[in-house]
């Protein structure tokens, strides 16, 4: 089938099947109904051949090329498909299993993942291992026919709906920190797994904390080799970056009440000083949007942006805080207190509360600057003291003891 035809069929299928409004499914935290609807849609999507377009046929994918995937994505861009709860599985966990899983793992997990039957989450970050993921403390101890896991993970999206998790845990504390990690597939419904919503500064719970208390994992659920977990995680994170880079291009949300287009409507532009601040916001917004477009053009031309994507992420993080701060400053008192009956009330306050998320998720601004400095500009690295020391001899935060 030629590409035009493929695209035409995709268009038709979407027209017939894609939900026009995806109220509770496109956003951050669908309820149980939303998840059920999303799963139903995903099954239809899979059965029509549009889930896992480039994934190997052997494990349940369609075995097609990037060209078909781009064609479908171009058509799907007109919709807000309810795929949010599957995004971690599709973007990170699944591809990791395709790359590193055993055949029986691939057989067992990939098709249900693509068909939306099983939702996945990713379990790397910990309270004391944020920027420094390899410092994680959750431990897995070998036991009869498997492993027993104890510890805590945090910042886990969609965990409250997840059936499976891709877990990174420490299996050896006597070797340097990058060498004593192992990756596992964990059943999120297993006894000893507790998922607790993590209320963030917006007052909502976009993420979860996960507690593992003597959770048993069968031996066949080790991904890759025991002790090779860091390299496995690097693969996962690479897929994460690819899926972000291949996505919409991080341009910020169009409906952000603190963005230029919103402020030009709401701000008092009869004041020349206000006009000048809006011009500043326009300049910064356009500068970043054009940079993102340039990266996207380069990517389409086969030039993977690599660490330069971290520059875009850093700029977006800074712009997000800048514009929320500016918008609230321009609005004055009404930005910070509002009548509960006022539909527009509180939108700027929420934007301000949400603004730090962009800087704190996916690597802090400092980590981004290190990446840009070291991998784009090739600046010399910081002297490292943690590479050749057994994990158990490393410092930990505060009075934490292990």
């Amino acid at each position, binding site marked *: 089938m030629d590409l035009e035809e493929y695209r035409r069929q995709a268009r038709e299928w979407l027209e017939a099947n894609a939900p026009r409004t995806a109220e509770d499914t496109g956003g951050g935290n669908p309820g149980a109904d939303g998840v059920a609807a999303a799963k139903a849609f995903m099954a239809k999507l899979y059965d029509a051949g549009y889930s896992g377009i480039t994934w190997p046929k052997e494990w349940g994918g369609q075995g097609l090329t990037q060209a078909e995937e781009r064609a479908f994505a171009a058509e799907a861009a007109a919709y807000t498909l309810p795929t949010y709860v599957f995004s971690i599985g599709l973007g990170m966990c699944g591809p990791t299993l395709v790359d590193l899983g055993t055949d029986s793992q691939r057989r067992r997990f990939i098709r249900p993942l693509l068909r939306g039957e099983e939702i996945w989450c990713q379990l790397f970050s910990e309270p004391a291992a944020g920027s420094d993921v390899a410092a994680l403390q959750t431990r897995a101890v070998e036991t009869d026919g498997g492993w027993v896991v104890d510890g805590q993970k945090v*910042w886990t999206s969609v965990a409250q709906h997840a059936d499976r998790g891709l877990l990174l845990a420490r299996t050896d504390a006597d070797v340097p920190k990058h060498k004593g990690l192992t990756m596992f597939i964990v059943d999120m419904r297993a006894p000893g797994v507790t998922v607790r919503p993590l209320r963030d500064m917006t007052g909502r719970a976009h993420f979860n904390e996960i507690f593992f208390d003597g959770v048993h994992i069968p031996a066949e659920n080790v991904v890759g080799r025991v002790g090779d977990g860091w390299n496995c995680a690097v693969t996962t994170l690479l897929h994460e970056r690819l899926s972000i880079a291949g996505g919409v291009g991080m341009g910020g949300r169009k409906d952000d009440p603190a963005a230029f287009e919103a402020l030009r409507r709401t701000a008092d532009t009869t004041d020349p000083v206000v006009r000048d601040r809006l011009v500043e916001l326009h300049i910064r917004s356009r500068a970043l949007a054009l940079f993102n477009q340039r990266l996207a053009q380069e990517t389409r031309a086969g030039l993977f942006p690599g660490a330069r994507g971290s520059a875009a992420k850093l700029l977006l993080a800074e712009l997000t805080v800048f514009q929320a701060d500016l918008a609230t400053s321009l609005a004055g*008192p009404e930005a910070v207190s509002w009548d509960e009956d006022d539909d527009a009330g509180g939108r700027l306050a929420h934007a301000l509360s949400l603004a730090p998320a962009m800087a704190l998720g996916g690597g802090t601004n400092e980590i981004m600057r290190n990446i840009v400095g070291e991998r784009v500009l090739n600046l010399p690295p910081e002297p*490292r003291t943690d590479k050749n020391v057994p994990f158990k001899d490393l410092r930990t935060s505060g009075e934490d003891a292990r």
Partner: protein
Amino acid sequence: MRLVLTPEQRELRETVRSFLASASPPPAVRRAAESERGYDPAVHRRMAGELGLTGLIVPEEHGGSGAGYGELAVVLEETGAALLPGPFLATTLAAILLTETGEKDLLAGIAAGTTVATVVLDGNRALCGAEADVVLSIGGDGGDRVLARTGGDRRPLRTLDPTRRQALVEPGGEVVAASAEGVARARDLFAVAVAAEQLGVLRASLEAIVAYSKVRVAFNRLIGSYQGVKHKLADMHCTLEQAESIVRYAAWAADEAPDELPGAAALAQAYLGRACFEVASGSLLLHGGIGFTWEHDAHLYYKRAKADEVLLGPPRAHRARLADLLEL
């Protein structure tokens, strides 16, 4: 010009600081903020009565301590640093307005700690407007009348800042026919008072991240040892030094140099508003993920900093006033 604290002011600071540390530590702040009233009336009563702080700048003949803005700034810096919920600032603003306009009856209740009061600062909004016994506002054609109302319709608002509430209120009847000068001076003194609170918020949020950077480890090093963190904290410290200098100056001008007060007050708001939010925001971001959680206090400082920045109007208003005063 005096920019350093007197021994008595240092003592006052210690008194207030240790009172707040025991009566309103961070967990108590959260409990109070989430309570029905939004604050702990017992703490407010003790601040007002036992410590005599609501009458601090009220003349002795009206039942206050007749202290100066140097002292008031010290107190508000501490209540800001502690993110004290409740009507202490609101009542203080009311005391300022009444003192400057020569009202006596309401003042006596405020100084005695028996009256919780507030002032309408913008439109019909007032800090703690639902909780106050008396709502003052400035009215009249020349903006030189002080109106007061007890009771009346109070419509609580939702707020960014969980630690201090606001409400829509209705103006009351005239209680004082003040002079335009008196009202103008009161507005300048509001600016000084809020700046002092902002200084406290700024200082406390800087202290929080400095402390955290001495215990948090990443890549086997305390994060405070990284220049990426250290240099930002150094810049924040520079901001704090300047902020404190400006607040001391503005308080001195309030006490000793009435001619300099308008410029000092506008300077204080223009500098402190920005400085406080920038430090609170920088502090939150440098905390990393934990700073984004509801359970951590970083967001409370961040939100209070923004709420304070716009409390007396959009920041550009202070800058425009400064431009006028400088005859630019």
